[in-house]
């Protein structure tokens, strides 16, 4: 096997790691943002229900 094959393997592995890693990071960011928005919205709904039960001040 040619001595320089190691550079080729390193290049293809690096590309796979960079593209795959960035894709996974984007999925994680999307999930975190969605959970954050949903948790804030759920808290809001809870407040609305509580104030509705209390009735007008």
């Amino acid at each position: 096997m040619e001595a320089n094959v190691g550079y080729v393997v390193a290049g293809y592995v690096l590309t796979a790691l960079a593209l795959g890693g960035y894709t996974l990071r984007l999925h994680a960011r999307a999930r975190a943002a969605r959970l954050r928005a949903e948790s804030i919205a759920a808290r809001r709904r809870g407040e609305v229900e509580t104030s509705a039960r209390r009735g007008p001040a």
Partner: protein
Amino acid sequence: MDVAARGIGKATTRSGERLLGAAALASLAVSAVLSLVVAPPDAVQGEVQRLMYIHVPAAWLAYLAFAVVFIASIAYLRTSRIRWDRLAAASAEIGVLFTALAIALGSLWGKPVWGTWWTWDPRLTTTAMLLLIYLGYLAVRRITDNPTRRARWAAVIGIVGFIDVPIVHLSVVWWRSLHQGSTVFRLGGPEIHGAMLVALLAGVAAFTVVYAYLMTLRLRVGRLEERAVREALSPTVAQVAEEDA
């Protein structure tokens, strides 16, 4: 421009995103087979020349990503619509990834061929500048929380920064460079073996699909992060009642 924006909207649905993800994986697999199995080794450089099939597509996709930043930045300054800013930010982030990848792959290729990981060659230096410009673009976006100010500052950098893209591309023509000149886009047609050209074009096509997929994903992240900020900033029921009292 509205037609383009609507088209982008349709492509960024969840089903469109999944379809693009599958297409990206399939095209990368085809490209890997063509570049590692079908294309012959280079007569002079041998096996290490196979790095060209990922190094060149990464560099071309960086150009494309920054061209999208340039166009979206102009569109934002003309229309003040935040979706253009969202598009520019997504493309800049992905462009930085491809630029860094092109530099790293070039370095891996340079060591066995030139005998060095890095040299202050015009092409390498202008590409490093390109990376710094768009890292600066992303850094500027973090300076202010005001979305309008952030979008305006970023748009100006997105337009001015694009000047470096033709400089990078033409650096091998304008100055004496260790880096090889154009192999495909040259007078008299491509100077490359047919199977190598097919593998190279397949690599460019695969990276373009990957770019499209990453864009849809990054645009969704942008929308979700903005929604989370909107939810957090909108007044609570208690705050509204307090203000009404």
